[in-house]
């Protein structure tokens, strides 16, 4: 069972995502943005960071990396893909997920321990959570405000595609408190907070993030 983690120029949390995959029991494989080969991985994480310095728009340049061509194609075939923070932005720019992420409403970078509710535990990345499981994981972003038109938001909610919602105060102005969404098939998930920083109590506020990585192991075995 191999989880690939893509490194774009400016990726920052790639090492953390690989560590989290390993803690969950997977073999972590480093993937390079310029290499279209996925090296036989069973799932892919697009990690957090400021790929290409967020120049133009967050995720807008990474979306054109050779590795993304393969990922977009295989995601259509069911490959589990998790985009965290900048990875979520890349997924939206790639049109694997609807909507976009814009600058936080308070215009500041924010790093805090954030309470979330997992609202959809039927995706490849969230099956290990209970329905409406409340977790606290790290949130840190500059452009974390999820936006989409009303029709899209209604559809996401109507079809149960909102994966996670912020609890307590909305930290970045996301519409309808949305922290993460998935595609219809449930294999592609975008999440603004960082589960990869929450896999050991020594260095994170909780181990609540581990479930994303253990879930995908089961999803791969089941498929």
């Amino acid at each position, binding site marked *: 069972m191999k989880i690939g983690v893509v490194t774009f*120029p*400016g990726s*920052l*949390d790639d*090492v*953390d995502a690989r*560590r989290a995959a390993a803690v969950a029991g997977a073999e972590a494989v480093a993937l390079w943005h310029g290499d279209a080969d996925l090296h036989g991985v069973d799932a892919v994480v697009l990690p*957090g*960071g*400021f790929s*290409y*310095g*967020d*120049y133009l728009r967050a995720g807008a340049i990474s979306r054109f990396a050779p590795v993304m061509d393969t990922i977009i194609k295989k995601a259509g075939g069911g490959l589990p893909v998790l985009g965290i923070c900048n990875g979520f932005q890349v997924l939206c720019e790639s049109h694997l997920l609807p909507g976009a992420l814009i600058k936080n409403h308070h215009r*500041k*970078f*924010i*790093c*805090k321990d954030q309470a979330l509710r997992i609202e959809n535990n039927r995706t490849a990345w969230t099956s290990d959570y209970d329905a409406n499981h409340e977790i606290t994981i*790290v949130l*840190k972003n*500059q452009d974390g405000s999820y936006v989409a038109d009303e029709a899209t938001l209604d559809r996401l909610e109507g079809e149960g595609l909102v994966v996670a919602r912020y609890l307590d105060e909305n930290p970045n102005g996301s519409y309808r408190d949305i922290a993460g969404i998935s595609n219809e098939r449930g294999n592609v998930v975008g999440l603004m907070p*960082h589960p*990869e*920083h929450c896999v050991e109590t*020594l*260095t*994170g506020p909780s181990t609540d993030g581990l479930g994303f990585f253990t879930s995908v192991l089961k999803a791969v075995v089941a498929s």
Partner: protein
Amino acid sequence: MSTDTVSNATSTPDVEQPWAELGLKPDEYQRIRDILDRRPTSCELAMYSVMWSEHCSYKSSKVHLKKFGDIPQETPAGKMLAGIGENAGVIDIGEGYAVTFKVESHNHPSYVEPYQGAATGVGGIVRDILAMGARPVAVMDPLRFGPLDAPDTKRVLPGIVSGVGGYGNSLGLPNIGGEVVFDSTYLGNPLVNALCVGVMRHEDLHLANATGIGNQIILYGAKTGGDGIGGVSVLASETFADGGPTKRPAVQVGDPFMEKLLIECTLELFAARIVEGIQDLGGAGLSCATSELASAGDGGMHVSLDKVPLRDASLAPEEILMSESQERMMAVVTPAGVEEFLKICAKWDVQADVIGEVTDTGLLQIDWHGERVVDVPPRTVAHDGPVYERPIARPAWQDELQADGAEKLPRATTGEELRDTLLKLIASPNLCDKSWVTDQYDRYVLGNSVLAQPEDSGMIRVDETSGLGVAVSTDCNGRFAKLDPYTGAKLALAESYRNVATTGARPAAVTDCLNFGSPEDAGVMWQFSEAIRGLVDGCIELGIPVTGGNVSFYNQTGETPILPTPVVGVLGVIDDVTRRTPIGFTAEMEGHQLYLLGETEEELSGSEWAHVIHGHLGGRPPAVDLAVEAQLADILINASRDGLIDAAHDVSDGGVAQVLVESTLRGGTGARVWAPDGLDPFLFLFAESAGRAVVAVPRTEEVRFTDMCTARRFPHTKIGVVTGESLDVQDQFEVSLTDLRETWTATLPAALG
């Protein structure tokens, strides 16, 4: 304009040169003429002017800094592998690892252009650490501002914080500590100090020298632009005067994305073992890198300046030599390694160009389109700058200041008054919650942050298997330093040392950032020399060396210098980070016994209480006994290792009251405390005596813990118990944690939005 070549300079000895505009004094200009036996070319003049600036040459501080050499160069953790004079100090921490760390100032640029000034301050120190061969693993930023309610603070502070965060966050470096301090003397001259820690294997240590005749000089990273020209001489080495021209063009502009690529690219170059010598380009840009590399190596270097890739093709050679464009490095590479070097740079989309080579001439020779524009002995540029024995005089007002102690001021006596005092103090800018600032910094990235602010020190795991780690704290109470610079510097050292030990790490080495007013003021030079004397004596007593640091002079507005601010960073080593001690009282600690370690004296001068309640600064700072500090550290480290304590917090600004507020709010569990017999409750809560800490001891370990203190004859007094949802000072007052939190957290958001 035709190029001012060496032959032109020789044949036109009497040409007027703009040495004064470049910040040189008449005798310094004459000295350059004496060294060269002719007038310098305009390029040479540019190089000497930036390299002989206060910032680069340490001409006013050199004679004092030499005293750091009197400290034994061994650390309690292991050998010092590189020390003062290198880009950053390096110490052996065992298991084949070495760490490098250093703190630097970026004060003046951050006043002129807060965001970019602070951002490039972070960028500069990170490249220093990288240049030693290490992977940067954490940053911290001691910051000082004018009063929180001053209009200019609202311009300067958000920009600086956003710059520190914007740059560090984009590099993927956790920001794990630092300080945010307010004092009226920093209005118009904020302090932005930036510290970086790096980790490497011993064999990865790299030094800045250009050896091996025929080896190639490669400039890589960002292209050279017109930003930051003369930053060190124009900005860092002068005070600001009203009505002068704006100095914004002398501030550099940073691109953290480029720096992130530079870091990964450089680490891959190190791993490929093709880097013979390396230097980052910071202050004084190419002038510094070429002259320092050459003078530390075989002595000769030839550079074709026209091969330097430019962002702005119209730049003159003098400007290219002085530019402080960010995100550039210079490497020395064998001819056989060049191809692989360029290949690795291409992988990371980093531009790299061979611009010269190491020669046997003993001279630094630079050509511009085939014409020689620089021909100098490199040592004369890099190391033989002027050295000044500046006049030193103890200020006339010092005695009067010291005679005016805060101990005589009226104090709270009733429970109600003590409660009011506490609430006023915790809402004051220096003691209130700083998360408005620190929430803008990523403290989690890289996944090794074991402790981060508001803990006593930041702690980073170095090895995931063994648990080996390092802890770092930075501290300075400038008010204490003003009252007595010698004792104030020792107190800064003591506090930083104590903060590291409180988390369970053994202090090993020191870096310092010495922020002072103008060296041309004899009173300031006295403060400076006293502070150094205090640091040297303190380090000798504690057995830890100074491995590097930085001096920042000219921090004053008009005639008013800042509080003398010798910021001290102490780095400690911990064998197993899972044993670390946090500050918070958690629900699991309900019933733990609280002990105050150390003696509380009637010491209120220079305290936060005197500052906030009375707007008073006078008297003598708390006494400092470093033998006591070392004993206390030993107890804290052993208690952490043996599991005798579950929380600990050093006592400093704001006294025991502040400790109790921070520890209860951090962990979410309250405390019931009482003043020990014979101690006035006011002094118990607010005195700032040094050499103290509060610890939370599980009942099951109480006997072992007190036996250990007794055996070491160290004062330890039971002051309470962890319990409930309030801070209850018995027989005096009680405040709920909710009210404490509301008061403590409201200040910065209310002032800054």
